[in-house]
């Protein structure tokens, strides 16, 4: 089995909001405004990339290292909020 790959829950829509100057999650009851790092992580939750690929991607994009704990903690929270689901096939 392939490692699980996070994807945005179909109940939510992730997009850039010009009025908020931020990435947001839209859902039936409202909107969550995301901070920059949350936005960058969710942007990569496309159901194709694994968590370690996402981490590698972010580290390359922001010229940083050791981002794994932060990304994992965020994804755990996002999972608890139902923002993401996991692709396993």
């Amino acid at each position, binding site marked *: 089995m392939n490692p699980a790959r996070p994807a945005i829950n*179909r*109940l939510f*829509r992730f*997009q850039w*909001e*010009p*009025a*908020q100057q931020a990435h*947001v999650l*839209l*859902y*039936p009851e*409202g*909107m969550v405004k995301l901070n920059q790092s949350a936005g960058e992580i969710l942007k990569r939750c496309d159901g194709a990339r694994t968590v370690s690929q996402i981490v590698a991607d972010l580290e390359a994009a922001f010229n940083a290292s050791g981002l794994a704990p932060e990304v994992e903690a965020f994804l755990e929270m996002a999972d608890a909020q139902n923002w993401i689901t996991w692709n396993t096939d």
Partner: protein
Amino acid sequence: MDTLLVPPDAMQRRPGPLWLLAEVTYRCPLHCAFCYNPVDFAQAGPELSTDDWLKVIREARALGAAQFGISGGEPLLRDDIEILVREARGLGFYTNLITSGVGLTEARLAALKDAGLDHIQLSFQDATREANDLITNTRTFDLKRKVAAMTKAAGYPTVINCVLHRTNIDHLDRIIEMAVEIGAEYLELANTQYHGWAFLNREALMPTAAQLAEAEAVTERWKARLGKKMRILFVTPDYQSKKPKKCMNGWGEVFLSVTPDGLALPCHTARMLPGLEFPNVRDHGIDWIWHDSPLFNRFRGTAWLPETCQSCEDKDKDHGGCRCQAFMLTGDPSATDPVCPKSPDHGLIDAALAEAEKPGTVHPLVFRDPKNSTRLARPF
């Protein structure tokens, strides 16, 4: 001094609306006695055209609105909602359809899906003329089951809203069971808000304290059983909770509603309030309506609050409660919401609750239809 680079106007401007609710028609095949539509809806002017709505959608989006809801009446009675959804979705709105499901065919659903509709909320209620009792009305249940299966097959989660009142609340157990059978992911149990037709029918619709307590217990049992499988939200009624609500999250703060005939409102029931001029989207842009119209500024913030609230520490939390409720109960739209125990008019709530406890009196329901609407608008 970075801030000096920001033009003074932009610095002072409050955010635009987040929500745009398009009540596209007052026409409806159902006749719910708890409908929040205005009792005199039959007097409303002609419906907005498709182009009028497109203009409203574009202007609201330009102000930053991100949620677009289509409701009514029954919105499916208009044949252009696909066009509205497509425009809204294309501009980045999250699009919601609030429907009774009557009139939703496979073809219509496919067209809406193709237009980019994000979400459907199915109202699961029908105190119709034929049967006040949801349970005995199997025809309605079959329809909802069909619609839910259809929308599910189209990839939409099943989200159901059910209005609770005196005549159906004892069947809550069965209502929740039906929602489970239908495969709902989300069930909102909304106790009747006494606006519009519901206020007219208040005596007939108000449950007793014992009925409510039982309903809450039933809900808790199901919640424990279902866990994440189906989420249930039980909205406690204002009268019983005695907690004034920050209506629409604050007048003119996030919500913009437009009536079928084009009135822009800060709350979908505000049309009933006296002494206010309601701007029409045919005559004014949304920007002016939101930021500058006297209506949207009338109850904005807390400066206008009556004395009871001015000295209260909760005023930022609830802004003195619901304006429509204050008006319906006291005749004064700027009074403290009588559901608040600190309101000088709170006795009116206690009296209504006591009335609900009186055994034996049966109040006939007045159904929401054009004939009753016309009759009730006549002075004699």
